[in-house]
């Protein structure tokens, strides 16, 4: 569905994106994560057809996006910094969107209005940040896009409204096979909605995987051995284990290990641990460990 191949973007001498590949299947919810300045917003603006890439190709269903009105008809973009036409109300904006988006659905507009409970005659400029965010979702979803590109989409929304918005989005994903590419720092939330994740760092795509697959490839294990097993013996088996992080608390050691469960388990069990269990990793933890491996980690510095 969405395909970005070897996309490069320079801002002067600064390389914002460097040979980035990204692929999103139809009906997928793809979470794009990365530290500040990683290039996420740039990537999304390129996908939305705002920026022209300096190199590489960006397409939706094999059709280039940049300056392609027909492709843009099938896309909606909610940027991080919202902008509405001056003096606009939701109603006037809906008329505007209805005119330029062929698939704009007034029935859906009315339905969403009932959910969001916003006054369509109120000037958007007079609304709160959260309300303006709701308006942008309202309009975008009424356009019934095939591709929805979101940059920090729920920033400013209260928890109830976040859940409500995500529910609406996922409903479209389920019913219409809408594809969502979302960038957010709220990894907890992304974990709930995304099926694919890409991690971008310093303009390069570190990895992009199915979220479940990603989780199956990295594990947190807790291990305690009997007195006859010297502490740290597991580390000596690093030849067969890819340990990303280790912590010890008394006799219990915690490891972040990369590798399939079936590969890790025999190695640990061969030392006859007294305690051994797999603890589920959150996306945030995966992000931290992956990014940490790429030289971006929390520094234990006390100021």
């Amino acid at each position: 569905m969405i395909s970005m191949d070897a996309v490069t973007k320079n801002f002067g001498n600064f390389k914002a994106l460097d040979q980035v590949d990204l692929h999103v299947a139809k009906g997928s919810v793809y979470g794009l994560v990365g530290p500040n300045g990683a290039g996420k917003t740039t990537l999304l603006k390129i996908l939305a057809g705002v920026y022209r890439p300096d190199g590489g190709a960006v397409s939706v269903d094999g059709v280039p996006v940049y300056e392609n009105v027909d492709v843009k008809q099938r896309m909606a973009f909610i940027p991080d910094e919202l902008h509405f036409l001056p003096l606009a109300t939701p109603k006037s904006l809906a008329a505007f969107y209805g005119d330029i988006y062929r698939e704009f659905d007034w029935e859906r507009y009315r339905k969403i209005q009932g959910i969001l409970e916003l006054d369509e005659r109120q000037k958007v400029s007079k609304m709160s940040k959260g309300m303006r965010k709701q308006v942008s979702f309202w309009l975008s979803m009424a356009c019934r896009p095939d591709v929805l590109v979101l940059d920090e989409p729920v920033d400013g929304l209260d928890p109830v409204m976040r859940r409500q918005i995500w529910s609406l989005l996922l409903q479209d994903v389920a019913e219409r096979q809408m594809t969502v590419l979302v960038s957010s720092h709220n990894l907890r939330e992304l974990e709930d909605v995304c099926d694919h994740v890409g991690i971008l760092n310093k303009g390069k795509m570190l990895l992009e995987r199915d979220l479940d697959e990603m989780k199956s490839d990295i594990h947190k294990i807790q291990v305690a051995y009997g007195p006859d097993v010297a502490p740290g013996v597991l580390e000596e088996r690093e030849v067969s284990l890819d340990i990303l992080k280790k912590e010890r608390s008394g006799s219990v050691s915690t490891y972040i290990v990369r590798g399939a469960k079936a590969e890790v388990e025999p190695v640990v069990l061969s030392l006859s641990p007294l305690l051994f269990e797999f603890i589920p990793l959150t996306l945030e933890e995966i992000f931290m460990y992956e990014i940490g491996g790429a030289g971006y980690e929390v520094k234990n510095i006390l100021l």
Partner: protein
Amino acid sequence: MKLEVRVMKSKTSYSKKLWSGRLVRHNLRLYGLLSLLFTIFLWLVHPVRMLLDHERMLGMQEVGALYTEGMRILSFPNPVDGLLAFVVPVVMGLVLLRYLQEPSATAVYHSFPLGRSQILGSQILSGAVLFLGPLLLNALVMGGLVLWEGNGAWTEAIRWFAGYGTTGMMVFGFALMLGMALGSTLVQGVLVYVFLFLPVGLVLGVANILELLLHGYPYGESDVMKWTRISPVMALENMARDGNGWDRTMVQFLAYILLFFGMAFLLYRKRKLERNTDYLCFDSFKTGFVFLMTFLGMTLAGVYFKEMMYTRTSTHVGMAVGAVLAYAASQMIAQKSVFIHRTWKGMAVYGLAMTLTLTAISLDVGGYSRRIPNLGQVRSIQLTQQLLDTEGQLRSYGNWGSHYDPETGMPLPEGFNPILAIQEGNGAAGLKTYIAQEQEAYVTPEALQAIWELHFSRMSEADPVERGSRVVLEYRLENGGTLRRGYSFEYDAKVPELGRLFETLEYKRKNNPVLFLASQGLSKAVVNSPLGEPIGIRGQEAIGVLLDGIREDVLEETYESRWEEGGPFYFVDFYYPYTDLQGKTLESYVNVPVYSGYGRTREALDALGLLDRVVPTPGNVRSLAVLDRMGEDPYLEKMRSMEMPEAYEGLRKVEDKEKLALLLPQLQSNYRYTLAGDYYQVQVKALNAVGEEGLRTFYLRKEKLPRELLAEVND
């Protein structure tokens, strides 16, 4: 899902549309207030004023006045319209491009399923409706008013609309085009006006500096001056001055509109939106921008310093200062940073290039100054009229027709020349011939030879001079080419080569309308006697005697005698009747200066029995006093000494008739124009034409004072 199996609405191909109707409607709603204000303003300036004038004109019961007034209001550009045509479209251009200079707006607009051409097309259409709508509305109302009056050309309203609309859309296009290269509304607004005036400023500035650096460079008449016309401002100014250029200017503006809008589309396509808040969004423009601004700053500062001190050194200093300041400022804009010290190499290269160029110009490496055609190649030579016209050195005749209504004293209608209204058979009808040939080039061999020699004499003079009259010689060559050179003449310098030109018949015919008068049909002549009261002469024969005398003197007058005069002795007005616009018969006159050396005129006055009433003689002069030598300001001294009988009584006076007979014929002028030479101011107590006694002032060259009286009159 495959794109091709998707059901597409077939009614519209969005990508091919040049605008979005919804975006246009949105813009109209958003900026409609601006347009409404413009409409109201135009309404007040034009239709309401026409209505008010209508009432006034009806009250005056002047048929045709409303028509005239209406046409004046409808003429474009009048000052208010001209100003608004350069303000309103720029404001439209700024507000309609704001979306492009705010990152969040840029992202949203360009994520819409609208192509860039479609967005820009919508903004252009919006601007056109917002600007042309009010114009069209007012034009219709004004056209209706003219029809209602039943006196005229409602099509003038269409012309007004076309002129105003074309100018405004051209300025709007210019603002859009520049906006496409800029990332700040403020910078866009400033640079729009800088670049609108840039061609004029640069060309005038460069020509002004060349005048100082390059001997013989004809500032003001040079070929380069025509480049100022590429500026819309100058084109409009020309259009205002020359109504006949209206259609040509419209074509020029239409071409500009196409060019500017086309360039705007092109730049929009190339514009990188991630750079949309840079002052200059295109790297490729930065170098050109910086050096253009540097050149502009250098030129403007050079002109300023030149005009302040009028020396080459000061001009060079000004140019250097202006270049450095402009370079720094433009680099700051281009780099969007005040830390520009790393760009010093560009300034160094520019400085070196300019130093070499200016040195080459000053040394006249190309031989510009020495390039004069042989007379055999010359068909004619045109002299600009400012030549010899200042301070009355040669053209102090002032013998020109009055352009004031003699009954009301008010100026005659603009563009109305009473001479052109003279009927055939009138003695002044020859003035039409004078007007026709006055501005023409010199063609007679003797005049061409004189001008050619004059040119050589100028080449050897230091140029320019601070106090001088600028003369431009334009050679029209046999091969169809032209060659122009300009020089300065000092007001007070005696130039023998100028004398040779002065004494040619062609020069005299170009500068003396009195040579074209005939006594038949002239209504009267009035001698403005230097003794006080004017003397009227009626009757064709008497007028003819005086006219013949003056004409003979003009034809015989030499440069040497004129040079020694300093100024006219008195003036004679020859009156002629003409018919004004309303069919009423009025009088105007040709004002002719008479110099003390005009012997034939003196004889004519004598023959008419008027000499004693015009010229100071022992018969009408009671006494005479010679004041100290003149200072630097003859007018001020004259004002101080005139009509002060108490002061006069305290002077040493000459009253002896024999001595007066020696002194009075030497008096030279009643008006003194030139500062050359040493003069005495002479006060005369004399009887005027009606026998009243009064004090009058004359001037006398020092060497003209009879030696035997020198000790007596000089303290």
